[in-house]
């Protein structure tokens, strides 16, 4: 059990970092609560693996401190930190049997053979590896190897947190679901702090209680999957989460109203101190865009350019002025290319300036 606190933490691979772009992990302050299941989500190169390695101790941060349960562990090497890490490619000891692989961390810590045997049996049963215990680890499939890697972390009774670095990358798709459920089961049973790095939003959203979204070295939002979906705090979160991602449309201030092109939207800029020259972005998820074949008072006229049938829903791509909007429409609706109207519900619209969400935007009726 461990609460992980990152204080003033930053990391740069350059000797004298100056601008934010020099940092692999920009200065941040974060608490990972004891027993929480977190996902670190972001595109490749955003710094999530660096952050994970700083927490596990494989990298020493150039600035700041890492605290486990209030104790400063920044100077402590990995083996003293009571954490286990599962890597992207299955790491097992080829020459040993599965039993010996699981027993290895215990034997290195001089645990009695009887206790070693008992503990390995317990964990093997939990991970459904009992049948394979006597087999040599090298000939097994990737998912069993990852289970062994996970088992080596669980078998130590002093483990407080388990860190995962994209562990399901090499696993077959149909086995990913099995392993994810297994991870959730382990989380419930042991109440360990789990931190799971991934670039796959489905994995992150189904596994975690709280998702930390990273972009270009900085944390852009921390929230439940629900919060990230409905109220993204950053255009990147809107774009990255959801399939397809949020529609991000350039907008501007015209006669006191936020408009796309010349068409006003049902948002009141109100107390936001917006200036006509601001580059505003309006975001709305394809799921919330409503289609209408006839003009309604608060709908935008659009030209439908493409309709894709994806089974039980359709993706409609429409042109608003020069910009494209995608909408997720039910499969029953008959939609043809050409003139149409799209309705953006006020409560689903988000307003963004320089990527960040403006929180005082109020819905208003036109």
């Amino acid at each position, binding site marked *: 059990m461990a609460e992980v606190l990152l204080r003033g933490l930053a990391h740069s691979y350059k000797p004298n970092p100056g601008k934010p772009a020099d940092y692999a992990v920009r200065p941040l302050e974060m608490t990972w609560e004891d027993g929480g299941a977190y996902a670190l989500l972001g595109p490749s190169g955003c710094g999530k693996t660096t952050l994970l390695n700083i927490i*596990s101790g*494989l990298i020493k941060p150039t600035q700041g401190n890492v605290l486990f349960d209030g104790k400063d562990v920044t100077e402590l*090497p*990995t*083996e003293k930190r009571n*954490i*286990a*890490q599962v*890597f*992207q*490619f299955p*790491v097992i*000891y*080829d*020459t*040993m049997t599965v039993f010996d692989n699981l027993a*290895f*961390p215990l034997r*290195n*810590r001089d645990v009695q053979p009887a206790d070693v045997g008992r503990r390995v049996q317990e964990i093997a049963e939990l991970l459904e590896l009992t049948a394979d215990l006597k087999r040599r680890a*090298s000939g097994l499939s990737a998912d069993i190897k990852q289970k062994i*890697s996970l088992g*080596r*972390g669980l078998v130590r009774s002093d483990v407080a947190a388990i860190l995962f670095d994209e562990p399901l990358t090499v696993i077959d798709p149909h086995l990913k679901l099995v392993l994810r459920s297994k991870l959730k089961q382990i989380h419930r049973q042991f109440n360990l702090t789990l931190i799971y790095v991934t670039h796959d939003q489905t994995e992150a959203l189904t596994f975690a209680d709280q998702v930390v979204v990273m972009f270009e070295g900085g944390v852009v939002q921390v929230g439940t999957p629900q919060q990230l979906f409905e109220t993204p705090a950053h255009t990147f979160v809107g774009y990255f989460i959801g399939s397809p991602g949020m529609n991000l449309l350039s907008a501007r201030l015209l006669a006191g109203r936020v408009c796309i092109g010349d068409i006003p939207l049902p948002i009141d800029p109100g107390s936001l101190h917006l200036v006509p020259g601001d580059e505003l972005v309006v975001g709305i998820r394809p799921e919330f865009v409503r289609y209408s074949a006839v003009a309604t008072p608060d709908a935008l006229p659009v030209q439908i350019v493409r309709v894709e049938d994806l089974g039980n829903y359709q993706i409609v791509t429409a042109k608003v002025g020069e910009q494209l909007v995608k909408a997720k429409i039910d499969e029953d609706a008959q939609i043809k290319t050409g003139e149409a109207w799209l309705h953006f519900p006020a409560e689903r619209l988000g307003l963004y300036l320089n990527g960040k969400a403006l929180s005082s935007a109020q819905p208003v009726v036109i």
Partner: protein
Amino acid sequence: MQKIQDHRAWLLVLPVVISVAFSAIIPLITVVNYSVQDILGPGQRVWVANEWFINTMRDKDLHSAFLRNLLFSLEVLLLEIPLGIAVALALPASGWKASLCLVLIALPLLIPWNVVGTIWQIFGRADIGLGGYFINNILGISYNYTLEARDAWITVVIMDVWHWTPLVALLCYAGLRAIPDAFYQAARIDGAKAWSIFWYIQLPKLRGVLLIAVLLRFMDSFMIYTEPFVLTGGGPGTATTFLSIYLTNIAIGQFDLGNGAAFSLIYFLFIQIFCFLFYTVILRAGRN
């Protein structure tokens, strides 16, 4: 689609065929030709069928040379492989220091083999050689590789280790660089000590590279000729007469071309069999 037939392509292969024919095929056929005859002089030859082959297989001197070669290869492997691994483990992983060390280590490999023999020949001399003088006069141990069989043998072995350990070291170095960092990181998290990391991670992952190193070193040491020939000429007596030196004594020294030809064909066959066995072992290990 119709396959285009253009027989002019044969002309492109012709130069290679001619050069291989001259340098390999025709000489080989000549050797086979000589091996079934007794060449008494230019223009004088007698057909003896398989007499030379029987002779060679029964030759006591050949048996001793063969055993000498096996013993030499064994000693050399037992020294070079562990030493090569140790050197590879000690080399830095990257940076300018790594490049410098690699260049320095590779230097013995670049020296022409007869120059290697000459270097050690002078080095071991009691009168003007650094090593010979040091051992005899400063350490007080009597050392003379031209008179003592044991001294000659030790010198040849050490010369080979000096010359070829860098090859093993370079191969193992490349093998070590191929191990992903995650293995070392996981081993640290598991609390493994340095010996465990070597025994359970590094050595198993070097298996393929080591088999290649063993194959190369065994083959080369079994066929060794230049270095011992320059160093001791096969002496004192027959202490360092390896198969290749024995063969050249017969074929060129005694001008016994028929005998030499039969001998070289048998030598060739031994090496082919060993190559095949090792290759099968590597394939098996690779599949595991």
